């Protein structure tokens, strides 16, 4: 059984090295955000902060100018992300329910064509969407961003939630229907709550898409008071003297909510993607 022990050791070494490579930059960003400037401009001072400080966060959040107002940018991002979550959950749960319960002509192709948008060249979109929003007076509005982000998130979410609905036996709905409940009541009172984990996963996915998006925000938003956090962070690098401390603090504030939201639903997310991959 010597080979089995060697195998276990090799696998463990592999996993440790893998985690190190995958997580090192993220952990390093997090730890370094507590370093004073003198340590940030000299990596030789080591991995951990010698004199830990909160000054990077305080500078980022308290030193505010109209073009550099990070608390406002975070608030804008929160607004846009929550709007996207609401709209995405609504649209994709309704569509996912339809796709799970009814047959449509060309049903399989319908779902495939929906997922086709994920191989769509996004750069093709920026010019026409800019012009369309110019005509619709949606430029420089958060509503415009919410519409785009929902379009980016909803197809995948529809597909994911549809597989959750398929696991709910239709007999439950039929029983409620005999008891006199109408379709709307059945959907909102019975089926939707049973797909709770699916809704949560879909909501988190939509949040993550909207919370970190940069390209569309950089084109569609023009006034500094409307900026989202990713945009605010990127403009920090455009200044003549880049302040690395606030830059890292801002990165952490953008990364942390995503990680906190992701872990509880990670299993569902992984199962969803893997299940779909096998089907394809």
């Amino acid at each position, binding site marked *: 059984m010597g080979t089995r022990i060697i195998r276990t050791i090799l*696998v463990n070494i*592999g*996993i440790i090295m*893998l*985690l190190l490579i*995958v*997580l090192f*930059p*993220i952990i*390093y960003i997090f730890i370094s955000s507590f370093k004073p400037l003198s340590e*940030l401009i000299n*990596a030789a001072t080591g991995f951990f902060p010698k004199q830990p400080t909160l000054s990077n966060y305080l500078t980022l959040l308290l030193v505010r100018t109209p073009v550099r107002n990070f608390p406002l940018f975070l608030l804008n991002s929160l607004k846009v992300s929550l709007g996207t979550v609401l709209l995405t959950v609504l*649209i*994709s749960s309704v*569509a996912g329910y*339809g796709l799970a319960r009814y047959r449509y002509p060309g049903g*399989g192709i319908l779902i495939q064509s929906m997922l086709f948008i994920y*191989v*769509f*060249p*996004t*750069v*093709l*979109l*920026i*010019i*026409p*969407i*800019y*012009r*369309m929003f110019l005509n619709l007076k949606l430029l420089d509005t958060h509503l415009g961003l919410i*519409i785009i982000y929902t*379009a980016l998130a*909803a*197809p995948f979410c529809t597909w994911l939630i549809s597989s959750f609905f398929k696991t709910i036996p239709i007999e439950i709905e039929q029983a409620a229907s005999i008891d006199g409940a109408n379709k709307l009541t059945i959907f909102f009172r019975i089926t939707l709550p049973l797909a709770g984990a699916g809704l949560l996963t879909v909501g988190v996915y939509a949040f993550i898409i909207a919370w*970190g*998006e*940069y*390209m569309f925000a950089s084109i569609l938003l023009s006034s500094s008071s409307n900026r989202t956090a*990713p945009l605010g*962070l*990127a403009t920090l690098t455009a200044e003549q003297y*880049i302040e*690395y401390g606030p*830059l890292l603090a801002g*990165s*952490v504030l*953008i*990364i942390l909510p*995503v*990680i906190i939201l*992701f*872990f509880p639903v*990670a*299993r569902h997310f*992984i199962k969803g*993607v*893997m299940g779909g*991959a*096998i089907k394809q």
Partner: protein
Amino acid sequence: MKVNYKVNFLKYLYIFPIFALIGVVFIYPLFQVINSSFYNIRMGKSEGVFIGLDNYRLIFSEPLFWKSVNSTLIWTLCSLVIQLIIPMFVAIILNQKLKGIHFIRSSVLLPYIVPMVALAVSMRWMLLPEIGIFNEILKNTIGTQISFLGSQNAAIPTVVIFNSWKLMPFGTLLILSALQTIPEELYEAARVDGANFWKQFIYITFPLLGKIIWFMGFLVLVWNFNAFDAIWLTTEGGPGHILQTLPVLVYRRAFKVFRLGEGAAIATVGSVFLVIIGLLYFKLFAPKKED
């Protein structure tokens, strides 16, 4: 019969919103961008002046455009190779039945879900000469330094590796899902016959991964061809435009020098290339309707 008709009509209400949204945000712009490529459009004006094929004539005569095509091909191919090969080995590691493997799998997914913008701007700091951590490591190990993002030779490999590091978990997940469909008995039988790790990989794992590898190759190719954030946020197209791939060129042409028509023409040309790749893929490798 009457009831049936009603149900038939109502069921389309469920899927109407999502397809309307896809139509407005994806399909309509597709036609609009081709249309725009025949116009000279000033920023902020909703109407342009029709100029026929002039935009195409202009971009095809530009050395900058051809350099961009070249950069796009190099960028895409390098990314493709890395993002196809490495996830295979990572997936094999993650396919072990261990305590806490779910937590490990979730952790490995982190770079993929964490916003690119935060990673990219922090990476710029980590990659700096003299003060960055990566050059500190180089200084202490091989005694030399590299201007990772500042030199034309280093910029492409650096950003390719950074971008692959971020995207790799997704491919890993796809391969992992395929690995889990391979019955463990196959490996046991092979081990009984004395096959080592490499033989098992070449004769069992790799052939059975076939279909998913092609699918992943297609996804990886398209995603990297379209990559914008990773390049723009680290180098804005790189020293000497070395990383100015087509998406970066479109973005710059349309929103930095405000020539929307030319940008639309470049976007159209790039997309024609992608459509050809897509058609090839579906012709050759798409899953047949047998299941």
